[in-house]
């Protein structure tokens, strides 16, 4: 079980990075550059709220898991 917990740390880090890429490249950038005012709020939420929480949080969580911080 400890090995699985640690190995999955890589998955959490990868998921965080993939989510960050999706939020910024596929969502936020097109919305920032659309020029429509109703797109601005979601773009700001993606960039400054969701991306830091999901990418930052999952990467740190995955790193801790990889390091065995959740073994016990």
């Amino acid at each position, binding site marked *: *079980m400890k090995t*699985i*917990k640690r190995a*999955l740390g890589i998955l*959490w880090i990868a*998921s965080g990075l993939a989510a960050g890429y999706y939020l910024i490249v596929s969502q936020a950038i097109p919305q920032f550059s659309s020029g429509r005012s*109703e797109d601005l*709020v*979601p773009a700001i*939420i993606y960039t400054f*709220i*969701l991306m830091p*929480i999901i990418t930052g*949080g*999952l990467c*740190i*969580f995955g790193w*801790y*898991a990889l390091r065995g*911080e*959740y073994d*016990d």
Partner: protein
Amino acid sequence: MTNRPNQTAGSANGKTLWKVIGASSLGTLIEWYDFYIFGSLALVISTKFFPPDNPTAAFLSTLATFAAGFVVRPFGALFFGRLGDLIGRKYTFLVTLLLMGLATCAIGLVPGYETIGFAAPVIVLILRLLQGLALGGEYGGAATYVAEHSEPDKRGFRTSWIQTTATFGLFISLAVIMLTKSSMSAEAFDDWGWRVPFLVSSVMVVVSYFIRRNMEESPLFKKAKAEGNTSSNPLKESFGKKYNFKFVLLALFGATMGQGVIWYTGQFYALSFLQNVCKVDFDQTNYIIGAALLAGTGFFVFFGWLSDRVGRKPIMLAGMLLAILTYRPIYDRIYQLTDPATKTELIEQQRTEGDTTVRVYDDGSVLTAVETAGTVKQSIHVGSGTFISLVWLVFIQVIYVTMVYGPIAAFLVEMFPVRIRYTSMSLPYHIGNGIFGGLLPAVATYLVNRAQTASAQPDAGWLSADKPYLAGLWYPIIIAGFSFVIGLLYLKRKNQDVQ
């Protein structure tokens, strides 16, 4: 996670405990009520405070304001959580209660866009942000306060009363709105009646304030303070030290993130899906949700009680798994039940008056189509058999909500030590609920619209969905799926102690 030594130092006697639970729950209930009337009246508010020339833009603006109310909640958790760990639980959640009450009452008094122009939406946005801040500080305080008074083997049961308040607050908000609407003409409600539910809040807040004011501080916090064991910098200790921060992340990704999306799917998305996708009559939708909430609310207490016996983790994870597996069949059934194409029309009862066409179906459903400026607005009032089926389908979702939400206050409180508990538990709770959950209606609506647009194009490719109206469910299913796996692997099964 280490097991902390068993203690009962904070346990109050039975009578005091019920006073503690009553005072805490009442205040939290009012805060949820205040918070939800804005969402429940989103359509009316959009026409009053946002530029009326484009109704869709106005509605999206309101959703954005709604999202702003949610996004700001974690900041309230940080601000008031820190205060709660520095000066005490009682005074902090008195402040959040008053702040919420003032902001809500003020929304009911702001003149509309037609009267003061662009200042109206700006003021409403600011007040909505204040509501979000207050709510961010309230829940953690109430949960911590009750848990620190409770016996160790009844903590899930005692704190589950706090958990009923969110659903009950939504129920009361719907009830007050329906009552107000039924007591006046539609024109009067649209003109000024929608303000009444906001103003009613001020009375409830004053009553709750005086009840809470006479309560004692949490015994565990008093003890920690007397011994000099409170934190001088709860934010740094909560999030700047790996030993604690890793549990904040675990609480977020292994529990509150999944719990948040299930909570909002079972209550808000069900409401939005019935109204916007299925086009069920506005009043009837509120009755469906209200009946399901009323029938399901007692299960918060049941699952809180059960979590004291079998552990918090198995119940919360079972709720997540059931939701993941059954959301699509449930929502597909809701859609089929309300789809006029699946019903037999009684042609002889069809009638047209001006721009309005009324069709009657064999199950008692009545479809009203109003054509205005080239667009047709449909609304279906379902028959009694379909009504009961819809209540049942929403009720099943409310049961999932009670499974993941009933034990979570005790679960979060037990993860963190007294000195930084308010701060540490509030942040993951409000990120999970406020951000992952609160953005659900907007994200799910976006996914449905995108799938419907893509499906209408011949070269849609992978974006084409067999049932585009179900596309919005991918958001809660994926988020809850992540949370389920993380919770299953990394959370401890055994309940922890609070010190």
